[in-house]
C-alpha cells in the first residue's frame, strides 16, 4: 500500500498505472481486452474457477549413491570393509537382517532405517579370519610358556609370591580407575622358612592379615596413588616384617605364661602342686627350686601322666564341660577315689 501512495504523489504517471492495477485485479483482463477489440464478446465472470493444483516437484536426487553392497564382490576381504568397531550401517553389510518385535504374522522391520540395529554393539570387525590374522601378527611379540610350569603345584613351588592387582575397562574421558591402584600380595607362611620364634613374631606383626586356616599371609596396599608405588610398598612391608621377625629383642624375654599361647604344664604351678602333694603323701616333703621342679620325673607318680594330659587340655583347649569332666576323672584316679556314678 505504501508503494501505491508514494507513486500517486509523482504526477502524470499516475493514471496509467492505476488502470493497469485494476486490470490485474480482474480475471483474464488482458485477453478480454484483445477479444473485445476483435469480437466484442461478453465477458463471463468465472467465479468457481478451478485453480490449477500446484504439482509438487518430486526431486529425484542425483547425489544419492547406490548402496555399497551392490558393488561388493563375493570374494572380497571383509576385514577391509569393516576394519574397526563401528555402528551398523545397512548399505555396508550384505546380509538380509531384520530386527524388531512385531505382532504375529508380520515381518520385522528391515535393516534400513532401523535404529535398533544401530544400538546393538556389533562384532562385525571381529570375524574369525580377522582374529586369526591379528593373532598371527601378534605372535612375534609372544614368548613360549615354560615347560616345567605345567601345573598349579609347580607354579606355586617356583613362584610362591602372588601379586594380585586389577585393571579396569570403562568408558569415561579418563582411563584411570581408583581401584586399579590396589595391590594384594599373598604368600604361604610356610614358604618364608621361618623358625619357631620368627613365625610367632611374624604372625603377631601381620595380625589379622594371616589366616591360620589356609596359612596364607595377605597384605593389601591402596594408600599410594599409583599401582607401582603400592607394589613397592607391599614388597617393602613383606621384607620389613620378614627381617623384623628374625630379630630377637630384649623385651621378648619377658614373655610369660600369661600371654597364653600355649600352656606348658612342666613350667606351671600345677606340676609343683602335684609334686608337693606326692611328696606329702610319701612324707618326704622338701624345699625345691624351680629347676628341680622342672626336672622332676612324674612317671613315678601313679596316674600322673593322665593328670598332666588333662590339665594341659583343660588349659589349652579352654574350659568346657567336657574338659572339666576329663579333669575330674584324672584327679579322681590320682587320689584313688571312686568315679562318678552314672544314674
Amino acid at each position, binding site marked *: 500500500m505504501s508503494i501505491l501512495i508514494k507513486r500517486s504523489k509523482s504526477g502524470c504517471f499516475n493514471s496509467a498505472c492505476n488502470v493497469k492495477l485494476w486490470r490485474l485485479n480482474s480475471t483474464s483482463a488482458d485477453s478480454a481486452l484483445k477479444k473485445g477489440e476483435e469480437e466484442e464478446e461478453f465477458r463471463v465472470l468465472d467465479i468457481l474457477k478451478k485453480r490449477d493444483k500446484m504439482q509438487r516437484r518430486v526431486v529425484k536426487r542425483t*547425489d544419492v549413491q547406490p548402496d555399497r553392497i551392490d558393488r561388493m564382490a563375493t570374494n572380497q576381504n571383509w576385514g577391509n570393509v569393516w576394519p574397526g568397531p563401528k555402528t551398523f550401517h545397512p548399505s555396508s553389510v550384505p546380509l538380509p537382517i531384520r530386527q524388531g*518385535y512385531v505382532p504375529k504374522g508380520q515381518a520385522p*522391520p528391515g535393516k534400513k532405517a532401523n*535404529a535398533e540395529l544401530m544400538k546393538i554393539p556389533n562384532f562385525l570387525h571381529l570375524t574369525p579370519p580377522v582374529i586369526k590374522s591379528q593373532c598371527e601378527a601378534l605372535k612375534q611379540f609372544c614368548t613360549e610358556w615354560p615347560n616345567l610350569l605345567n601345573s598349579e603345584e609347580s607354579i606355586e613351588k617356583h613362584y610362591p609370591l602372588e601379586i594380585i592387582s586389577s585393571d579396569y575397562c570403562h568408558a*569415561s574421558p579418563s582411563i584411570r580407575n581408583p581401584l586399579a591402584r590396589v595391590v594384594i600380595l599373598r604368600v604361604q607362611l610356610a614358604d618364608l622358612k621361618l623358625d619357631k620364634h620368627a613365625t610367632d613374631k611374624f604372625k603377631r606383626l601381620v595380625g589379622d592379615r594371616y589366616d591360620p586356616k589356609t596359612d596364607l599371609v595377605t597384605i593389601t596396599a591402596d594408600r599410594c596413588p599409583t599401582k607401582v608405588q603400592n607394589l613397592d610398598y607391599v614388597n617393602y612391608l613383606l621384607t620389613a616384617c620378614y627381617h623384623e621377625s628374625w630379630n630377637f629383642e630384649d623385651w621378648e624375654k619377658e614373655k610369660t605364661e600369661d600371654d597364653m599361647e600355649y600352656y606348658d604344664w612342666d613350667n606351671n604351678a600345677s606340676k609343683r602342686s602335684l609334686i608337693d602333694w606326692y611328696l606329702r603323701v610319701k612324707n618326704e616333703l622338701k624345699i625345691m627350686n624351680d629347676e628341680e621342679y622342672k626336672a622332676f620325673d612324674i612317671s613315678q607318680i601313679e596316674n600322673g601322666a593322665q593328670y598332666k594330659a588333662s590339665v594341659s587340655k583343660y588349659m589349652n583347649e579352654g574350659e568346657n564341660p567336657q574338659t572339666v569332666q576329663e579333669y575330674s576323672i584324672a584327679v579322681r584316679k590320682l587320689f584313688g577315689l571312686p568315679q562318678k556314678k552314672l544314674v
Partner: protein
Amino acid sequence: MNTSVAKLAQISFRSINFTVQGTPVLASELHTSAPLCRVVSGKYRITKKRDKPLTYEMANPPHYIAHRKSWNSWNTSSLKDGLRRSETAVEDEFIRRFMTGTWHGLVCSEVIIKRQFNHIRVAAIMRRAVSPTKMYFLLGYTEELLANWLQCPVTLELQTVDSFKDVVFKYI
C-alpha cells in the same frame, strides 16, 4: 535412554536441588528398570484419525527396554560401582540436545550414544533434506565442537533416509 525417562530425571534433579539444602545431589537417580507408572509413562495417545506416526522406539513403552528394544546410551557408568554416573548422564543429555539443535529437523530417530574408553560414538538416522556439502560441514562441525567440549574424540556415525516416513513403524 528413553526421552521421557531422561526428562523425568531432569525434573527430579531439579526438584532435589530445590528441596535438599546445600550442595546439589547429582547421585544416580535414574533407574532403567520398569518405571513405576507402567500404564501411562512413555506412551503416546491414540489420535482420532489414527495418523500419528510412531517410530519403533516410540511404539514400545519404557518397560520394554531390554525386551523389545535396547538402550540409547551405552556406557559403563550405569554398571555397579561405575564411575562418573551423574556426569555421564548430563553429558549424554547435552549431546542429544546439541545434535537435535545442530541437525535441526533432520534427526529422525533417537540419538544413540555409545562410549568405549574415552571414545564417544554418536549414531543417528538423518533425513536427506540438505545437500551433502552441508551435511559434511555439519558432521565436521558437530564432531569438532563436541570433542572440544567433552575433551575426548567424538565420532558421528550417521545413516540417512529419504524422509521421515522411512522410520515410521506404525500410525496411531
